């Protein structure tokens, strides 16, 4: 979800059609946001998990995703400065760095990833899904902006399923709170037919995305399903789900990956194509953005490729069959919100990881635990043990952070990663 426009990390694939397309989409989107005050277009700040992009788009509202801005700041080397500023303003060292990075960016003029100013929000849509920090985040933003906030409380799937009561609660909030607020901001009526069109396009893009992610079941995997895949999920998790551009992007991406598959090519890494796939890993947790390339390189150098990851499911779980259903527009959106990875209980998460290990024939599970995110991290160690005992395959654990460079210790991570990979090798009886 992150093509750095200034400094494309994927130099080698910069010419790929999908890559170019994504870059253009993002650039155009930010340009549109920058012009919003002149053009009179309205925008809504919201979060990635449980985002209701189709609904916003059906009102011609532009989504802004502070999380994406934060991770972009991390990739562009701005986050340290932003976090320092937020801490200076009284934020604790202990809390989620996405929030601090965003606050810091806001206080430094709200200049977005493309160097253009972001507009102030016309509405804060607090899609409160899978993370309590979201609530604090928008409470903090509410102090800065004189715009309305809508709290969309998305209940947690504690029992691993969606009950009628939960579905009714979310749909009621969408219908009775959110839609009226959007009508107010957009100055137009809710148009269900438009929404349905968007949802149909979402389903189409989702279909292609799932195909791409599942291509990793092949040997060698044509993609890296963690580092590489954060680019693939970008359009669908952020501002573009439900747009024709997203449909085209995923179509093009699928064609490209199909081609790699036919040629039996491995994934493209920061140092070019991976020639030998030595380790197939399932990865749990988000990556680190401040040293993204360095981090990726550590894996690539060892011939380790991610064949499946959970981070690429934070903006929606599609691989077990969920697709947006245009026939039940509000219910489907409610179900989508409740189905994001971080809104699932831990045993379901363990089940997913175990399935990935088996279906993708992985050699091991690696957890990257990020200091910022309790939603992911609290409980990861228990999950790790559980997956280990269910699959009998090696598990590894590394720690870093999303956008706080102080918590990325390259030598420490490298040491653990190497030990983990050597452990896999030893277990296979390969190298001694």
């Amino acid at each position, binding site marked *: 979800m992150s093509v750095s426009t200034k400094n494309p990390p994927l130099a080698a694939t910069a010419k790929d059609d999908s890559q170019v397309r994504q870059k253009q989409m993002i650039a155009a989107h930010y340009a549109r946001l920058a012009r919003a005050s002149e053009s009179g277009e309205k925008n809504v700040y919201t979060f990635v998990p449980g985002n209701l992009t189709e609904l916003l788009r059906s009102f011609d509202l532009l989504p802004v995703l502070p999380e994406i801005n934060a991770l972009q700041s991390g990739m562009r080397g701005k986050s340290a400065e932003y976090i320092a500023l937020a801490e200076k303003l009284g934020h604790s060292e202990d809390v989620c760095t996405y929030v601090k990075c965003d606050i810091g960016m806001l206080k430094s003029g709200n200049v977005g990833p493309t160097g253009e100013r972001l507009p102030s929000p016309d509405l804060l849509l607090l899609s409160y899904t899978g993370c309590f920090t979201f609530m604090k985040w928008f409470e903090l933003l509410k102090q800065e902006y004189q715009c309305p906030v809508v709290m969309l409380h998305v209940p947690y799937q504690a029992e691993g399923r969606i009950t009628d009561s939960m579905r009714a609660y979310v749909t009621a909030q969408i219908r009775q709170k959110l839609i009226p607020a959007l009508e107010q901001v957009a100055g137009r009526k809710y148009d269900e037919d438009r929404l349905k069109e968007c949802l149909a396009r979402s389903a189409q893009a989702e279909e292609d995305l799932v195909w791409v992610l599942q291509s990793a079941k092949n040997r060698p995997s044509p993609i890296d399903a963690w580092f590489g895949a954060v680019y693939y999920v970008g359009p669908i998790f952020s501002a573009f789900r439900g747009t024709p551009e997203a449909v085209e992007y995923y179509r093009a991406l699928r064609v490209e990956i199909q081609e790699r598959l036919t040629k039996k090519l491995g994934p493209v890494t920061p140092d070019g194509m991976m020639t030998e796939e030595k380790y197939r890993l399932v990865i749990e947790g988000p990556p680190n953005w401040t040293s993204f390339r360095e981090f990726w390189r550590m894996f690539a150098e060892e011939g380790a490729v991610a064949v499946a990851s959970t981070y690429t499911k934070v903006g929606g779980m599609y691989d077990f069959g969920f697709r947006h259903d245009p026939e039940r527009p509000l219910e489907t959106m409610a179900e989508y919100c409740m189905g994001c990875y971080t809104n699932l209980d831990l045993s379901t998460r363990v089940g997913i990881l175990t399935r990935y290990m088996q279906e993708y024939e992985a050699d091991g599970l690696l957890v990257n635990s990020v200091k910022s995110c*309790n939603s992911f991290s*609290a409980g990861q160690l228990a999950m790790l043990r559980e997956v280990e005992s269910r699959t009998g395959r090696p598990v590894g654990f590394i720690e870093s952070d999303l956008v706080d460079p102080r918590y990325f210790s390259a030598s420490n991570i490298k040491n653990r990663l190497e030990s983990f990979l050597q452990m896999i090798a030893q277990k296979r009886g390969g190298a001694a």
Partner: protein
Amino acid sequence: MTETLPALVQRATELSRDWRLSSVRAWKQRTGALAIGYLPVYVPREVFHAQGVLPVGLTGAGDDLEIIKGDAFYQSYICHLPRSTIELGLNGSLDCLDGIVFPATCDVIRNLSGVWRMQFPSKMSRYLDVPQDFDRAMGGVFYRHELEDIAREIHERGGRKLEAEALRASIRVYNENRTLVRELLTLRREAPWKLPTAELYVVLRAGLVLPVEEHSAMLRRYRDLAQADAERRPRDQARVVLTGSFCEQPPLGLIKTLERAGCYIVDDDFVPVLHWLRGDVCTEGDPLANLVTAFLEDSIDSPVRYCGDGTKGQELVQRVDESKAEGVLFCAPSFCDPALLDQPMAQAALDGRAIPWTSFKYSENTGQFHVIREQAGTFADSIKLWSEA
């Protein structure tokens, strides 16, 4: 009843650090009924009570227990509470509980519910999602469902069926307890030397494990004894509101340190479950609806409760005014996202009124108070020296 003040405080202190739950065990032996634990910050204990169940508030293991296995479950950047909770589960201390309820407080407690289930699959363990939408037609309906669901599960596990009359009676009992708690908090505001927080704290915490009727009796007795103690005279100390300690509870030593360093704590947010509802819950009509409404409309302000209108911090300012405090201590557990992310907003509100504040962090097993003492002492010094000058 001839319990003296020191004996009462001693008993409360023991109850407040009784992580082995021996009092709960004894109660179960006596009554043969169910006991169900719950994590901070708030659960409607009336429902449990009406089903004949003893609700038991869990707040980790304080500074008594060495955490070994619990650390295996949590990284260093997560607060202390979940690791001691797991440790207690693994060392058998919580065996006497027939189940645990995990209210929707934060991601850590939420995920703890999942860890718990994986670790102890046979026991009842239940996540209680509380609404962040406070409209009766939306959040209210959802919350009512949650409560009915929990009541059903408790009934299936051997608790009484939830009946309106019993629930009304339980609400009355808890209303009484809340009234006493409020009374004590008011008395402390007026004369903090009569009801030092180090005492009040343990007396309130005892309420987490005692049956509510016994706790109310203890509160009454404490009120009378403490007020009657003529030895207790005011000293030259700074009046402060302490905030941020609503979940993981600080060690008693920390509170003593603050008082010794020259602070009178005249308001705080310890053990919030006891005073989460501001007033009495209505005892007429549908009792479950009344509980739901009370939660939606009469809860205190808390970092874990959504505040959508940008008025964060106003309630804190109001508390400062009402308690005639001279400053605020932000005293939050390390790595507690809700408490720490709330602080800048609350601090801005205080700054707006030129109310001085200082902040520090603790964990339930903090053993060294050196730095905190210096900080709180300086804070008290500056209030004292400058109010005099």
